[in-house]
C-alpha cells in the first residue's frame, strides 16, 4: 500500500485536506486493495452507526429531566411549574435540589406576602392588587413613570399570553389563565432606593432571556399588545 492505515481512516472520516484527499483517492484508483479497504471502513462505520442509533432514541428517566429543569433556575428564581411538579413527585434522588428550591420559594413567598401583590391560587401564585391591575391594563408602549413596568408581552407554547414585569416588590413573568395572571417566574423586585427601573440591570436581562426561552415567536408589538388587551388577554 502506498497510503497508511491512518490516512485511509482519516479519508473515510473526512479528516483530510483537499490535497491529502486527492492522494488517497488516486491511490485507491490505482490499487484495488486500497479501494477495498476504504469500502470496508465505510461499511464498518455504517454498521456501527446503525447498531447504536436506536439507543439514542430510547427514553431517558424522567428524574433526570426534572432535575435539570429544576436546577436551571438561578438561586433567586422560582418556577411555579417546578413547584407543582415537585408536589406530585414524591421522593426522587433530586431531594437535595428540591429542598434548596423550597427554601428559596418560602423566602420569596414571605417577602411577597408582606406587600400583597400575589395570592395563592389553585395552581400557584396569582397576581393581585396593583400588580394584577398593571398586568391587565398597562401597555409596554405607554407606561412613563408607572411603578410597575411591563418589559414585554409574548405568547408561550400552548397559546397563553404572558407578560414580563418589573416592580419594586417583585419582578417576574405572569401568564394569563382562567384564574387570572399566574406567576411562572418570580424574582425579588428592584428596590426603590436603587432608583430608575430603566437601569435595573442584569436581573432584567435574565428575565428577558427566560421569557425568550418560553416564548413562541417574537414579543407582541404595540398594536398587537393593544388588541390583546381588548380581547381580555385571551
Amino acid at each position: 500500500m502506498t497510503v497508511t492505515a491512518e490516512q485511509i481512516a482519516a479519508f473515510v472520516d473526512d479528516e483530510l485536506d483537499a490535497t491529502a484527499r486527492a492522494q488517497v483517492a488516486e491511490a485507491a484508483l490505482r490499487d484495488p486493495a486500497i479501494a477495498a479497504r476504504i469500502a470496508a471502513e465505510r461499511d464498518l462505520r455504517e454498521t456501527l452507526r446503525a447498531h447504536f442509533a436506536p439507543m439514542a432514541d430510547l427514553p431517558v428517566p424522567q428524574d433526570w429531566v426534572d432535575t435539570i429543569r429544576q436546577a436551571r433556575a438561578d438561586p433567586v428564581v422560582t418556577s411555579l411549574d417546578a413547584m407543582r411538579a415537585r408536589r406530585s413527585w414524591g421522593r426522587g434522588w433530586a431531594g437535595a435540589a428540591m429542598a434548596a428550591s423550597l427554601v428559596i420559594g418560602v423566602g420569596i413567598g414571605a417577602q411577597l406576602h408582606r406587600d400583597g401583590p400575589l395570592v395563592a391560587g389553585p395552581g400557584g401564585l396569582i397576581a393581585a392588587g396593583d400588580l394584577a391591575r398593571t398586568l391587565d391594563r398597562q401597555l409596554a408602549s405607554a407606561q412613563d413613570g408607572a411603578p410597575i413596568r411591563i418589559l414585554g408581552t409574548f405568547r408561550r407554547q400552548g397559546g397563553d399570553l404572558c407578560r414580563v414585569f418589573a416592580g419594586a416588590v417583585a419582578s417576574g413573568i405572569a401568564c394569563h389563565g382562567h384564574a387570572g395572571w399566574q406567576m411562572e417566574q418570580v424574582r425579588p423586585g428592584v428596590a426603590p432606593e436603587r432608583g430608575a427601573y430603566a437601569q435595573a440591570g442584569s436581573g432584567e436581562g435574565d428575565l428577558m432571556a427566560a421569557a425568550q426561552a418560553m416564548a413562541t415567536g417574537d414579543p407582541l408589538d404595540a398594536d398587537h399588545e393593544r388588541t390583546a388587551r381588548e380581547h381580555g388577554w385571551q
Partner: protein
Amino acid sequence: MHPAVFGEELVTLLPRMRRFARSLTRDATDADDLCQMTIERALKSWQQWQGGSRLDAWVFRIMRNIWIDEGRARTRRKQTFAPEADGDAVGDRGDAAIEAHAERGNVDRAMARLPADQREAVMLVLVEGFAYKEAAEILGCPMGTLTSRLVRGREALLRELGEAR
C-alpha cells in the same frame, strides 16, 4: 447563555450521554449512575462551559473524567451492553430477524473485546461523529494517540466482524 437554555440543551443530550455511558461502563446500572453524576457535575459547573464550544463534547469530557476518577476497576463484570431484551425469543423470529439479531450480538461482542481506550475512540468518532480534534480533547490525549487507537480499534473490529459475516 441563560440557565434555562443550557438546561434544555442538556436535556436533548441525555440519550446520547446514556449511550456513551453504556459504552464506557458496559453495564446499564453503572451507566445510569454515571449519567446522574455527570448531570449533577454539569449543572454545578455549567458557567465554566465556553459557549462557543460544543456542549456535547464538554459534557462527554466531564462524564469520561468522572468515570476515570471512579476507577474502571469498579466494573469488571464484562457484561455486554446490549439491552437485555435482545436475548429474548430468538426462536420466534424469521431468518432475517435472526440474522439481524446475530449481527447485533456480533457488534456488541466485538466492541466489548476492544481495549477500553480503543472502544472510546471508536464510539466518539465513528458513532458520535466527533472530529478527531474534539475526540482527542474529550479523551485528554494528543491527536496522534487518538488516531492510532482509532486505527487499531477499527482493524480489530474489521477482523472480528469480517469473520462473522
